Every structure is written in structure tokens, then in C-alpha cells.
């Protein structure tokens, strides 16, 4: 029998943690490391946003999706087309990208989520296979194979940051907001309904959970995350082209979600680091062995920590909280015995 630990950190510990996290994200990453790495960390944040979306739809919605690159592409091309063809301010395209991918998520989720398990995985896989050719076909609009040159948005004149630092901070702010939103979604009634619909459809229906509607809404929300990620991605890279958003990107994002922990939101950042840096390090070790090292690292992670890095970290965190007594008043063993007293009494 396991008690659910509800951590409650002492104020001093909470402040200390906040300071460490703030120093790391607001000072060490943007100011202490080489410039090219800063923009890579901006990409990590963007991947983390997309992975949080996968956490929602796969971790809690129970639907395996291998098509997230399609929604990332939608977000990227929304930003690219609006800025390049219509001269929009790039930041103003972010909400448009979010709205369009949310709507696309509803439209595609509605038929797609009637598919179960592997069929859904295949369906979404086909979606991400379809995207690059479609983008190439409508070249008058999308720039075809050549892609579109978005350019990196310049920081406002009054802000003493270079382009990569600026886009890093923009991504950080948006990632933080979307992280908090996801935390809210996964607190309380909605999380219970999602877990119920994921783990037992029949009982969920008996409890009044409309599974089809709930999972479609989750899919749409997850697409919104991917779309925002795509919009930011276009600004970081400064360039969009069809083959960026291929099946490999979908698979890579899914791998990131699994390595970080499929139900772990904090793991999303770790998963994003994994898919951003491990392939680079792997090809540094040996160019021809790059894929092998990446695959090996993935298999090792899955074998050693199936709950993902984030899942493992959360378990350690809860255990530490329990040991240190940093919890809301938890049930004692005597109380548990009292609740089962009748049964034991009869057994003796």
C-alpha cells in the first residue's frame, strides 16, 4: 500500500530552489555560455514546449501520436508566411499559430481519436509523412523546397541583448507560461478525468466522463503547444523548409517525451536536452556512429529508467520529501490498520 506524498517544502527551501532555478535559466544559460549554445538552448525550450504537448496527449490522454511535427510545421509556416508574405510582426504571429494549430488539432483529432492504440500511431505517422510533400507542392505560398527566409527577430533597441539571447528569453517566457498552464490542466478534476478515460473507458463513462470529447480537446491542446513551438522555432532558426518537419522530427519529439518521462512535465526539459544535444555529441564522438550512439543512449534510458529521467527524479524528490517530513500531514500506519480492522478481525 502506498501513500500519496503531498510535498510541502519549507519556505526557505522553496526560496532557495527558486533562486537556483532563476540563476540557471536567467543568468548561466543566457550569459555564461558561448553564443551558439544559447540559441541551441532556445531550441531546447521550444522542443520542451512541444514535448509538454505530447505529455498531455500521450501521457495523460493515452493516445500515441507520431505526428507532432505536422503541427510544429503548421506553427512554423504560419509565422513564416505571415511575416515574409504579409509583413507581420513575428510576435503577433504566435497567437495566430496557436489558434490555427488548436483548430487543426480539433479537426484532425475528431476522426483520428476514434482510432485506437497502434492504429492512431500509424495514422498520425502518415500525417507527418504527408506534410513535407504538401509544403513543397504549394510553393507559391510556402516557398516550396527552397523554404522561406524568416530571419531572426532583432531585440528592441533599448534591450542590451544579442539576437540569440533575446530569442532565448522570449522562448523562456512563453515556455514558462505554457508549463504553468499544463500544470494547471493536470491539477484537479481534469487530471482525474484524463487518467480515468486513459485507464478504463467503461468506468470513465459510468463516471460521466465523455472520453471522445475529452481526448479530442486534449489532442487540440497538445497541437496548440506544438504550433507555438513551431512558431518560435521559425524565429530561432530564421528559416523554414519542408524537410525540417519530417517524420524524424515527430519521432525525435516522441523520444524526448519518453526519455524525459511520458507523464512528467518537468522531464520535458530533460527530454528536449536529450534530443537536442545527444545527436550532436554522438556525431562529435564519431560521425558515422552518431545514430548508433543516439540509439544506444535511448535504449539504455528505456531499460534502466522506464519512467523516464523526469519520472525518476520525481520519485526521488517525493521520497526525499517523505523522509525529511516535508509533507502535508499524511495518513499514519495506524489509521490504515483501523480502516482494515474489520477484515483482519474476521481473519483471525
Amino acid at each position, binding site marked *: *500500500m502506498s*501513500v500519496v506524498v503531498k510535498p510541502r517544502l519549507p519556505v526557505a527551501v522553496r526560496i532557495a530552489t527558486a533562486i537556483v532555478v532563476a540563476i540557471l535559466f536567467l543568468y548561466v544559460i543566457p550569459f555564461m555560455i558561448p553564443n551558439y549554445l544559447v540559441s541551441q538552448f532556445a531550441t531546447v525550450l521550444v522542443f520542451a514546449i512541444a514535448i509538454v504537448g505530447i505529455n498531455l496527449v500521450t501521457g495523460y490522454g493515452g493516445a500515441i501520436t507520431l505526428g507532432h511535427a505536422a503541427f510544429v510545421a503548421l506553427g512554423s509556416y504560419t509565422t513564416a508566411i505571415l511575416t515574409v508574405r504579409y509583413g507581420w510582426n513575428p510576435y503577433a504571429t504566435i497567437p495566430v499559430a496557436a489558434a490555427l494549430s488548436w483548430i487543426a488539432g480539433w479537426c484532425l483529432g475528431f476522426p483520428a481519436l476514434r482510432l485506437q492504440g497502434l492504429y492512431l500511431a500509424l495514422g498520425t505517422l502518415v500525417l507527418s509523412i504527408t506534410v513535407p510533400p504538401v509544403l513543397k507542392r504549394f510553393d507559391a505560398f510556402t516557398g516550396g523546397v527552397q523554404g522561406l527566409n524568416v530571419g531572426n527577430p532583432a531585440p528592441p533597441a533599448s534591450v542590451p541583448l544579442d539576437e540569440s539571447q533575446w530569442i532565448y528569453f522570449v522562448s523562456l517566457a512563453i515556455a514558462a507560461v505554457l508549463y504553468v498552464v499544463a500544470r*494547471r490542466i493536470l491539477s484537479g478534476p481534469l487530471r*482525474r*478525468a484524463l*487518467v480515468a478515460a486513459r485507464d478504463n473507458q*467503461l468506468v470513465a463513462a459510468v463516471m460521466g466522463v465523455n472520453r471522445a470529447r475529452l481526448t479530442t*480537446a486534449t489532442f487540440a491542446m497538445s497541437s496548440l503547444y506544438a504550433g507555438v513551438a513551431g512558431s518560435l522555432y521559425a524565429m530561432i532558426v530564421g528559416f523554414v523548409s519542408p524537410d525540417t518537419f519530417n517524420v524524424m522530427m515527430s519521432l525525435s519529439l516522441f523520444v524526448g517525451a519518453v526519455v524525459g518521462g511520458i507523464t512528467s512535465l518537468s522531464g520535458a526539459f530533460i527530454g528536449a536536452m536529450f534530443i537536442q544535444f545527444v545527436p550532436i555529441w554522438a556525431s562529435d564522438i564519431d560521425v558515422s556512429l552518431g545514430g548508433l550512439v543516439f540509439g544506444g543512449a535511448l535504449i539504455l534510458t528505456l531499460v534502466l529508467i522506464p519512467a523516464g529521467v523526469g519520472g525518476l527524479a520525481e520519485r526521488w524528490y517525493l521520497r526525499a520529501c517523505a523522509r525529511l517530513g516535508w509533507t502535508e500531514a499524511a495518513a499514519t500506519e495506524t489509521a490504515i490498520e*483501523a480502516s*482494515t480492522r474489520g477484515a483482519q478481525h474476521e481473519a483471525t
Partner: protein
Amino acid sequence: MTALLQVRNVGIEFGGVRALQDVSFDVDPGTICGLIGPNGAGKTTLFNAISRVYAVSRGTIHFDNRDITALPADRIIGLGIARTLQNVGLFGALSVTENVLLGAHHRLKPGFINTIFGRGAVVDIAQIEAEARDILRDLGLAGVADHLAGGLPFGTLKRIELARALISLPRLLMLDEPANGLSHGEVDELSDVILRVRRQYKLTVLLVEHHMRMLMRISDRVVVLENGIKIADGTPQDVKADPNVAAAYLGAVT
């Protein structure tokens, strides 16, 4: 006084198998109606028909004078019909309290927009959480409130399911073999709990149970099914004296 639940000529078929044939009965408000029959008689099928998990091939089901025969399953609990499941339908990944709160899903109506902006809920979440605590305490489950439901003893799980049904504010409570797997002492305790919650929450109860002593003790009326057909319907005394019922349970004597 019209019946709260009216089952009329209900038939259910799975492929060629007739699970229920032409079953009709009423459940009057405030009463406890027992549903018995040998294994495979169609008791749980009937439960699933009323909670709309199974499609009804023929006949109608009315609840509170409303035809619910074609409603989707997820609308039923909101009308005031709550049920427990034969093999316990709790979620091992959720704590006991969360499992109970799931029973209030239709009262909270959580949507993404409401949840993100923390407003718009029909009922105050804190109020429902307080209700959950009260119900858990009432059923002697306060000590396990923060446990994951997975791994708790069966008798405890049965009571958690009852708590989850109660928080949905039902008018009709359907219990599918609540005494299954309980010891003698626990069965007596359970009978008292059912009688108590019926009074306390002003419930009508439909009860499937193999435990004959308990069922006969607390039911106002008993419906007997055999092979998907209703063979008897009356007070516990009438049903006990009915030769058809004895035949169904002990084999034909004629």
C-alpha cells in the same frame, strides 16, 4: 406515486445470444429492490443496460419519467443514477480521495478553459473536496484517503466505490454484488451501511447480490431472473415461497 425506474420489455442480444428477454419491473422511490438469479441470469447485463453501457435491443427504460433508453453512458450519472461495479472499477493510479472525487465529475464539469483560468466551475471545488472528506469519514475510510487505491484490501475498495457513488448525489444507487468477497461480519456491517446511507441520502437502491440472507433482509422487493427472463417479482417472503425460484436455484423438482 409513479415508479422512479421503469424497465419495460427490455431485451438485449449479443450476436445470436439473448442475454435478456422481455424484462419488465418497476422500482419505487425510497425502496430497496433486490435483483437475484443464478450465474448468467443477466443481472449485470441489466445493470449495464440501465447505465447505458450496453445497447438495448428492445424495450424502454424510464428514469423519473424520462426515457433514457438511447442516452449515452456518460450522461447517466448526471441524471442521478450512480452504480458500483462487480469487480470494482477504481483507478489504481489515483488516490482514494481522487477516486471518490471522480464521482463528482459531472458536478464540476471541468473544461480546459475553466481549469486553466481557475474559474467558471459550476460548484466550488473546495466544497466538493469537503464533501468527499465527510463521506470518507462517514464510511470509515478517512485513514486511507491519501493512499493510492491500488493494493488496498477488497472490502475497503468496495466501500471506496460506494463513497464515489454517493458523492455524485444519486437518487438511484445501483450496487453490483457489494458483498462479494466480504466476510460474514463485513456483510452485516455492509447491510447496515446500505440501510443507513439510503436514509441519510434519501436513496432508492437497486441491488444485485448473491448473498441471500443479506438481500432478503434489506430488500423491500425482489426481482428474480433466470436465463435472461424474469421468473418472479414480489416481497422477499413471496419470492422465497415461489416454487419457480426454488427450481431455478436447486434444479427442477417437477
